[in-house]
């Protein structure tokens, strides 16, 4: 009984994904289910569509930029939360540890108005800044867990052995934070690559990232190219997580299996 319920639930959850994957191999131009044959033509279409190529590159740069800023800033914030003697510690923790609770539309509008007032409307910097703000809570939380598990005696020991504060950080703190940093990296990449609503507000045809480009495509055309693109997207995301799990045993931190 319970088993059947779980199976039904899992089927329900994965059904849309399955439909998209199946449709992506449809030979005809209509988004119909079940498909009438098998073809790779929509994959070819997706991969050669110039706006997707440009958007994929944009995605790459925006995510790299956001991660490059959010990882060190988030790590510093996590250390400050645990070690720094902050006034109003709970307020800081709430702000830094929880993802934005405002709707994406509101956040997007906010970033847009800010960008406009700074005269930087539709600039890549604003897009990256928005992504930093969105991924930061995930980064801070992941690193914070590792910081909490860090025995302060280890850092004292390193200092007593002659290590300067910077060397203590390099040789002891940072290596011991590695699992948290890796989880943070993964979270940041997944969140940033999949971000849509806020990016829609602060990008244009030139700067838009992949989810936005896919949305624009759907608005204009209704053929399985978008299903093919989605399938590639899903596959890439899974590949990243699988590789990460493979090489770091992150599953223990991340998914609680094994």
């Amino acid at each position, binding site marked *: 009984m319970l088993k059947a319920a779980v199976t039904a639930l899992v089927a329900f959850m994965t059904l849309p994904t399955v439909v998209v994957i199946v449709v992506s191999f449809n030979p005809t131009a209509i988004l119909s289910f079940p498909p009438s044959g098998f073809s790779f033509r929509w994959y070819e279409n997706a991969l050669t569509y110039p706006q997707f190529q440009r958007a994929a590159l944009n995605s790459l740069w925006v995510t790299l930029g956001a991660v490059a800023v959010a990882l060190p800033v988030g790590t510093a914030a996590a250390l400050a939360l645990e070690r720094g003697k902050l006034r109003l510690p709970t307020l800081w923790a709430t702000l830094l540890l929880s993802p934005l609770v405002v709707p994406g539309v509101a956040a997007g509008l906010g970033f847009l108005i800010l960008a406009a007032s700074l005269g930087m409307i539709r600039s890549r910097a604003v897009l990256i800044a928005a992504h930093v703000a969105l991924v930061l809570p995930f980064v801070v939380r992941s690193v914070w867990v590792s910081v909490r598990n860090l025995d302060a005696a280890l850092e004292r020991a390193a200092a*007593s052995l002659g290590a300067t504060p910077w*060397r203590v950080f390099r040789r002891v703190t940072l290596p011991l934070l590695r699992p948290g940093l890796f989880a943070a990296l993964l979270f940041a990449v997944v969140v940033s690559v999949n971000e849509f609503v806020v990016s829609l507000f602060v990008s244009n045809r030139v700067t838009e990232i992949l989810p936005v480009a896919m949305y624009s495509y759907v608005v204009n055309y209704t053929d399985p190219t978008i299903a093919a693109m989605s399938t590639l997207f899903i596959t890439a995301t899974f590949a990243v997580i699988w590789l990460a799990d493979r090489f770091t045993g992150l599953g223990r931190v991340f998914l609680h299996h094994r």
Partner: protein
Amino acid sequence: MAKAVVELRTCTRDFGGVRAVDAMDLAILEGEFLSLLGPSGCGKTTTLNLIAGFVEPTAGRILIDGEDVTGLPAHRRGLGVVFQSYALFPHLSVFENVAFGLRERRVPAAEIERRVAEALALVRLDRLGRQKPAELSGGMQQRVALARALVYRPRVLLLDEPLAALDKKLREEMRDELRAIQRSVGITTVFVTHDQAEALGLSDRIAVMSRGRIEQLGTPRDVYERPATRFVADFIGASTILRGRAIGADLVALSPGLTIKVSAVGALAMGRDVELAIRPERVHLAAAPGTGTAAARIEGIVYQGALTEVTARLGDGQQVRAFVTEPAPLPLAPGQTVHLSLPADAFMVLA
């Protein structure tokens, strides 16, 4: 007199309104093994942290080799510290743990190789260099920690309850080994412990601490046989403390009918209230009343194997503890009246 390596000059440390160390003066001498002994919360670990440079004094100065190091961060003090939790770096091999201090000192690789090998041999852990700390037992980990703290030949070795996390048998082995290593290296050592047996067995001198102050500083024999204060008498050796009034140069009356003879160092001031301490191992059970005996009623008997701890109440209501070695001279039972032999020279007169 040997010269002072570490000096605390009226050092005080407050933690948000709580005074952990209170205007402490202490000089640790060249080559000595000095223990800071006291119950938890007495300020002994804070004192160690002050010397190590992990915390700064709220007031007072700290000197190492006559040089003022107050405010100097830990990494510039060049001391060796061993922690209760071992604090080995889990991501580094045993070799790299021990090499840590040498690498920070930019010692050439070949010399690091040689000195780490020497240090591991000193603690009998050669051939384990490639293991990770988690693969070693608690006792082995503590020896790695010791090797790590000794390898760069620090001026002073600071030990923060290094044996507390080990089980009893291992603790005793490590204690002997620690003493042997300390003697062979000849390093000035400060040892923090709450265990009086460890302190008595290891130390050249013991500083007995209570509430942020040193109650008594002296050799193990001094603090055991001539406790300066009631706290020391009570904390070390679990003495019985008896209150009375001096009625002669060597006579103390606990109550009008119960007089005890004491052979104190100096004559007692007539009519003064005094406190006497006597160790449970100096109290014996006498077969019959005689000189230096007092009648008491047995209240508690705790069998401990090598000896039996007997608690008895004197006629005036004060309790006395006695260790009776097996076999007991007479059958013991609660409620039974016995004669306690209280030798005059076993009494310590407390200030």
